[in-house]
């Protein structure tokens, strides 16, 4: 017997990639050796450990930092992945996550040479949020104004962060580190670029393999 209220939930695919990223972030926090091997470390990256550009997003610098980022990630990334998988676009989830993680690392490397270490998922959270807003705006004609309002609010917040050089109303706390708004902008821009590129143009193998 089907329970009507749970029918949609049962049919929804599991956001495995989002959950795997969250699990990796938790592991990097609880296993110091793993965190050391993954953290964005400018000296190590320059010496050839390029994977840290992407893996640095998985490392967090305090318990509060981890909690805020992972909570937002599971909420926003989870819904995005379920939505895109339902649309048959699982490959796009992978390309967004990989692209956003690399974009954040590269922007920090090129734009913040003063930082020797960096960590945090927030750039990828911003990428998922922008992707979700753009997807809603594109596919939900009835509520397009609301999606556009969400995009405008987010753009305003990113502009304010960029201008002030820090984040506003921080949840993560910044004890022991400085906030890097460039990471948020990098994630948002990557999601925008992916949305603008016609389907099948970028990583067609990925898009069709899932």
């Amino acid at each position: 017997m089907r329970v009507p209220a749970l029918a949609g939930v049962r049919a929804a695919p599991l956001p495995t990639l989002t959950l795997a990223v969250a699990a990796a972030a938790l592991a990097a926090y609880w296993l110091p050796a793993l965190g050391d091997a993954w953290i964005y470390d400018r000296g190590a990256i320059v010496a050839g450990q390029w994977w840290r550009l992407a893996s640095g997003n998985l490392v967090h610098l305090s318990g509060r930092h981890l909690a805020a980022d992972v909570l937002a990630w599971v909420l926003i990334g989870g819904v995005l992945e379920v939505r895109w998988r339902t649309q048959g676009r699982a490959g796009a989830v992978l390309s967004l996550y990989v692209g956003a993680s690399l974009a954040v690392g590269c922007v920090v490397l090129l734009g913040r040479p003063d930082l020797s270490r960096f960590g945090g998922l927030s750039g990828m959270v911003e990428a998922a949020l922008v992707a979700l807003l753009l997807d809603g705006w594109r596919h939900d004609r009835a509520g397009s104004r609301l999606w556009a309002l969400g995009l405008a609010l987010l753009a305003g917040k990113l502009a304010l962060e960029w201008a002030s050089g820090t984040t506003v109303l921080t949840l993560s706390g910044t004890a022991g580190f400085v906030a890097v708004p460039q990471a948020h902008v990098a994630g948002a821009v990557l999601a925008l670029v992916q949305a603008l590129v016609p389907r099948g143009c970028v990583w067609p193998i990925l898009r069709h393999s899932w």
Partner: protein
Amino acid sequence: MSMLSLRTAAAALALVLLAALGGCNTMREHHSAASVVDYLYPDKDKPMVTPGTPVLNLPLRVGIAFVPGAGYGGGALTETRKQALLQQVADHFKAEPFVKTIEVIPSAYLRPRGSFANLEELRTMYGVDVVALVSYDQVQFTDEGLLSLTYWTIVGAYMVPGEKNDTQTMLDTVVMDVRSRKMLFRAPGMDRVSGRATLVNASEQLRQDSLTGFDNASRQMMVNLEQQLALFKDKVKEHPQDYQVVRSAEYTQRTGGGSLDGGVLVLGALVAAAAWRRRR
């Protein structure tokens, strides 16, 4: 043969045996060494120093130096080679974000048997918190017989067997927190070059083996240094009661984090709820 003759012959045999044993005891060897134990703890009669809890002010200012030898020659390890080796060790530390500066301290500033009083002078002179002391011990045996070498390190003795014309080398880096007088970690490197010298080329070959020994031992020491540094970082995190870490504002400014704000979480929650409802 009379009893007297027998006694004389036995005494002569005993003398010959004693002379032979004496020869073994006075075997020739080339020895060059600079011991960190002699440098830090020269007076064995004094009670051992009880180390305190290190306070690591990040980013650290690190000094690095060769400990002075106690009357032995440096052999193939010339001042130029020492400086090159110190520079290699310094490069390992430079890449670490918790290191602010690293100073290569000339050997002339370290007194033989200078102990912690000398380290305190260096701390004041160079403004360093932590000092990496590099010591070495190399022996080249040039006589027959199964021989052995004892390396005295800060954590105890190593016994290493040797044979004729063997070159045994040990390099050791000991990283000390000067204020607390506590050893943070150490990384040794050892090497054995088997004897290849002949009577004709003995001197030149031994010199070459000496150089090879230092090169190989330093390579092994660098590998160990990297491992020990990684282990030390884990140890500091796992045993906060043993190491007090103070992150200065300068250090904090060098670490960045993607920091989410409340606005994103609220907006994200609303967007996620709307997207979930309209996902079909």
